[in-house]
């Protein structure tokens, strides 16, 4: 008993410190990233998913409430906004390349993200999911930092939104090559743009690992899709919500 005392004191000190949450977050991500690289960047071995699952297990075992964890992890969370601003660079680089295709890409992005939102919301609603879940489907195809900003403004759960976003990214990165091959689409820029809209961050990583041009278009599509949704969604929803009933 006497021997345990100092250790538990150290533990009390450590677990109260924001550093601890930061260590769990970064270490689990690092671990996930190593596995991801080992698995030759297979989309199923997603570092974010690994990190989230491990972190959930750890804080559950330690009986650490989520609020407590977030107190420390918020320093990582804060950088989401800055990362959003950084999307300006791939958008700009994409703009330089897509001379003459700008209008086409705008139309395709708008169509894609509309389909994404409508299909997810309608299916979830029809299958009886609660308002919390249905609401979080709105921004799920948008890159996570922007998706959370949108969710906050729509008064839906940013957490569920970001979880759906991550799952969407994984699914999209896995399924995209099959969808493209089934549709017989072989142009890299089209494949890149579509995967950027459907699978955002993870899609980009996947696209870059296959073809540089696809990666640049994917980054640009992800950024633009985020911008279109951030501006369009709140406006559209304020007018449509009363009619749609959700």
């Amino acid at each position: 008993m006497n021997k345990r005392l100092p250790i538990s004191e150290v533990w009390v000190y450590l677990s109260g410190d924001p550093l601890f949450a930061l260590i769990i977050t970064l270490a689990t991500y690092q671990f996930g990233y190593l596995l991801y690289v080992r698995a030759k960047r297979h989309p199923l071995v997603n570092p974010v998913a690994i990190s989230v699952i491990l972190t959930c297990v750890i804080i559950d075992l330690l009986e650490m409430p989520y609020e407590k964890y977030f107190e420390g992890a918020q320093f990582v969370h804060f950088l989401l906004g800055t990362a959003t601003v950084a999307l300006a660079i791939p958008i700009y680089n994409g703009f330089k390349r897509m001379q003459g295709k700008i209008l086409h890409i705008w139309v395709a992005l708008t169509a894609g993200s509309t389909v994404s939102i409508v299909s997810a919301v309608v299916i979830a609603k029809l299958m009886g999911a609660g308002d919390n879940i249905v609401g979080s489907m709105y921004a799920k195809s948008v890159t996570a930092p922007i998706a959370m900003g949108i969710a906050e403004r729509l008064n839906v759960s940013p957490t569920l939104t970001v979880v759906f976003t991550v799952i969407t990214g994984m699914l999209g990165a896995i399924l995209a090559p099959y969808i493209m091959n089934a549709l017989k689409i072989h142009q890299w820029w089209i494949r890149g743009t579509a995967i950027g809209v459907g699978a955002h961050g993870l899609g980009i990583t996947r696209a870059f690992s296959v073809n540089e041009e696809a990666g640049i278009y994917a980054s640009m599509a992800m950024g633009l899709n985020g911008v279109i949704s951030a501006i369009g969604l709140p406006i559209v929803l304020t007018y449509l919500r009363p009619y749609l009933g959700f």
Partner: protein
Amino acid sequence: MISGLVQLFLWQGLGELLSKFFLPSIPGPVLGLLLLVAFLCVKGQVNTDLAEVADAFRQHLGLLFVPASVGVVLFLPDLKTHALAVSTALIVSVILTIGVTAIVLKVFWYFSLKRSKGTAMSKGHRHE
């Protein structure tokens, strides 16, 4: 590295101010992004510091949403009861999103190809 980060923070700050006082429906960072794109278009190039930081963010964007995703622990019971609805919605939606975007682009591409072939041919005729 630091200079790139400072630039991003400044644009973010500017975006937050704009969002707070003029356009509350759009998140500040998105406005910061738009301002930065406009700035880059005017300037015509990306400085290396900024490109470096942006690249680092792009590569490890995933890490930044771990803290928020861990919040899923609060929703586990809700998600379990609606697991089928959630997974169907996500899978069908992602297939449709990627499919529709690609098809729209392919259609546009097809028509612009046809048009450019047409003009090339008429030019060719003139040549003869």
